[in-house]
Structures are given as structure tokens and as C-alpha cells.
């Protein structure tokens, strides 16, 4: 069955017996269907080295490309969607005694074309003494945070965690407007005024 060159969401592209489902597609009623709007590409799967058993080569992969990937012709470009256990960089947009709302800017090494919203709940800020965490002493709006995705969450938010030495605030601006540098796992220092502010700091190296 010839697949269309441009697919709209929900459009069947091929049989799931003949093709494998790649990024931008899903399987429904034994058909590979497009999930997003975009051009359809087919490419061969990377055949893993099998241990002597002769098998048929795995079926080709059908995928629908996102507009951000059209810049490069590499069909096997990594997806810019955050996955579970991905390390992301995000900017804190809002804080609340129970959670911090962040805008995910970078997934892994790729900058996202548009931001995703994430939540860091108060029990996911630190690994130890989770009930004594104060969000105001861990994050402030405007901080850049390195976090790990723990759940794809619901319709509006990914769930992130900064429980880990390498996770936490990477860049912060002081109340006086100057960029601060980290001095310990819980403090940033403003070099101009000398004032320290508390944050949950990520290990810089």
C-alpha cells in the first residue's frame, strides 16, 4: 500500500504487518496511523547484530517528521519530546508551597522549538529529608534548573525531579539583578553585593 507523502493526524499509512511504527505514528486496528501532521518517511531499521540466528531483516519503519526535523535530512533524528529518565534543562516560571512550575527548554542536547510545561513537586526536590523542603529555599522564578523526567504526566505537565547531586539549579539571578555563582549544595552568592541566597544547587562538574 503506498503511503501518502503528507499525512494528517489519524490517517492510516500502512499495515502493521508490513511496517514498523516510528516516531510520529501509532498502531490502531492493525494499521500504522499518523499521530501528527507532516511528511511521511520510510527508513530501514538498524539491524542489531544477531547471535548467529538467521532472521528476516526487520520491517522498514514508517515515521512522520516534525517540522523541527525538516531542517536536517537525517530521518533517524532523535525525537525532541522528553522521555522518562531524560535529563532536561528548564526555567522556573512559578513557585507554590507544594510545587514549582517550569518550562522545559532543552531535552538532552537538543533545544526544543517550543517549550513544554513541567512540574517539580516538593517531595521530588531532594533525595533526603523530603518533608522539610521549602520551595522558596530551593527555587525562584527565573532560575535555570537541570532536572530528570520521572513521568510523562497528564495533559498539561511533565513531572520532573531534581533529587540527585548533579540535578538542581544551574544558573540563578539574585534579587539585586546580578548573576550568582554556586558556593555549596544549598547556596548561591552574588559577587557584586556579597549576599548569599539559598537554592538547591546542581554540582557544577
Amino acid at each position, binding site marked *: 500500500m503506498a503511503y501518502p507523502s503528507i499525512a494528517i493526524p489519524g490517517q492510516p499509512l500502512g499495515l502493521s504487518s508490513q511496517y514498523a511504527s516510528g516516531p510520529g505514528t501509532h498502531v490502531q486496528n492493525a494499521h500504522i496511523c499518523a499521530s501528527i501532521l507532516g511528511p511521511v518517511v520510510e527508513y530501514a531499521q538498524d539491524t542489531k547484530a544477531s547471535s548467529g540466528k538467521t532472521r528476516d531483516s526487520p520491517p522498514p519503519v514508517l515515521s512522520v517528521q516534525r517540522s523541527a526535523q525538516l531542517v536536517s535530512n537525517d530521518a533517524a533524528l532523535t525525537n525532541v519530546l522528553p522521555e522518562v529518565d531524560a535529563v532536561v534543562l528548564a526555567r522556573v516560571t512559578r*513557585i507554590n*508551597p507544594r510545587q514549582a512550575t517550569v518550562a522545559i527548554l532543552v531535552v538532552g542536547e537538543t533545544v526544543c522549538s517550543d517549550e513544554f510545561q513541567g512540574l517539580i513537586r516538593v517531595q521530588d526536590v531532594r533525595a533526603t529529608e523530603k518533608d522539610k523542603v521549602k520551595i*522558596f529555599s530551593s527555587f525562584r522564578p527565573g532560575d535555570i534548573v537541570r532536572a530528570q523526567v520521572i513521568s510523562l504526566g497528564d495533559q498539561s505537565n511533565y513531572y520532573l525531579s531534581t533529587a540527585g547531586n548533579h540535578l538542581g539549579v544551574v544558573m540563578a539571578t539574585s534579587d539585586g539583578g546580578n548573576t550568582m555563582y554556586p558556593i555549596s549544595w544549598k547556596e548561591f552568592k552574588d559577587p*557584586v*553585593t556579597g549576599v548569599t541566597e539559598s537554592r538547591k544547587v546542581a554540582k557544577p562538574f
Partner: protein
Amino acid sequence: MALSPLVLPGDPIPPGALPTSSNPSIPLKLGPGLRHIPPDRIVPVVAGELCIDHKKNAVWVETNGGRYIPTAGDLILATVHHSTSDSFSCSISPHTPFASLPHLAFAGVTRKTRPQLNPGSLVYARIALANKHMDPEIECVNPATGKSDGMGELKGGMLFDVSLGMSRRLMMPNPSAQGSMVILDEIAEKVPFEMAVGRNGRVWVDAEGVAKTLVVGRAIQETDEGNLGVDEQRKVAKRLLRDL
């Protein structure tokens, strides 16, 4: 007391105005209304009188009016608006976000015995957390000692609104000497009453009967509105007590 200089935001401070403490080891303390621009500039950011305390080596700008800005550590009068699963939402000043008062932030309370505060109740509380990024949080217990320190629900009585400057004068350690507030001493000779002052511009008064409560409340409000001096306060006190 010498007339304190009036300053406007951004004015340079006259050099003789800064306190010169006899003890040079005490650092200069900047109070509300002043900002330090490193390395050596002190600039007022509000309009008002520049006040100095030589003993404590402190300088600040005294202004009256405007809205109350919640600051951690202030004692305030809050009205309970509604209750959520783990806190009360209380109003500190009108048309501002509610402050949250946790159910467990009271003296001698456990998960089984929760305080019963209906919407509309008045509480005397301390601000635990206040910053520009989040809604304020208040508490009715001292977290270090677990004692209530006079905080908690206020039953009966009546609430009066006063300016922020008046509530600061009432909360001074010696209002009659430091803040020229003699009217309450005059009234207290004839009318016994109980009073609680919040820094958010609210005063709660409780006396025997509505008439006496109103006398005390009106006394404070008239002193505030008219900016009355000591003699005028005595006249007002006489007039209000005579009408009782």
C-alpha cells in the same frame, strides 16, 4: 527632637543626617525605605521623614499610608475566608491574595484535634513567609517553642481599620512616650478594654458592651484621621467619655 529632614525617592542624603555613633564597631542599620547601592551610596526609595536612632545606629524613612506589604515576622490580624483540606485561607488586606494558615500551626493541636475556625473569624497571627513570588503564609504558634505567644482566634469585640503609621505607633513599646499616644491611657482610666493591634492596619477592641467598644475604636480612629497632638487627644477623650 530636631525636625527630621524630608526626603523624596532618589534624593541624596544630607551628609550630616547620617547617625554618627560613638561606638564605631556597630554597623549602620538601614531600615525600611532605604536601599544600599554598593559601594557607598544610601538612597531613599519612598517619600517621608528620615528618622535616626543614635543608640542603635539605625536610619530609616518614616512614611504613613499605602497598602500593607507582608513581611516575615510581623504580627497581624487576619480574617478567615474559607478552609481547604490542610489550611485556612485568610485575608490580610482586601484585594490581595489570601494567606494560608495551616491547620496544624496552632498551639497544642494534633491531627485529631483541629481548630474550629468558621469563615469570618478573626485570628491574631504572625507572618511566617512573605516574598514577592508566593502568597504569604501565616502561623498562630511560635515554631521554635510551640507556644502561642498570645496568637490565636479573637472572639467577640469589634475590628477597626487604621492607617499603617497608627498601627506602628500603637505597637511601640511605649506608645505614650515614643508615639505621642495618650488617648488610650485617658480612656482606660474609665473604660476597661482589651485590644489587639495588627501591623496590617487593623485594631481589634473588646469592652463591656457595644457603646464602650465604639468609644475606644472611635478614639483611635479620630486620633489617626486628625493626626491629633497630645492636648487634642485629651479633649477628644473627654468628649467621648462624657457621651457614654
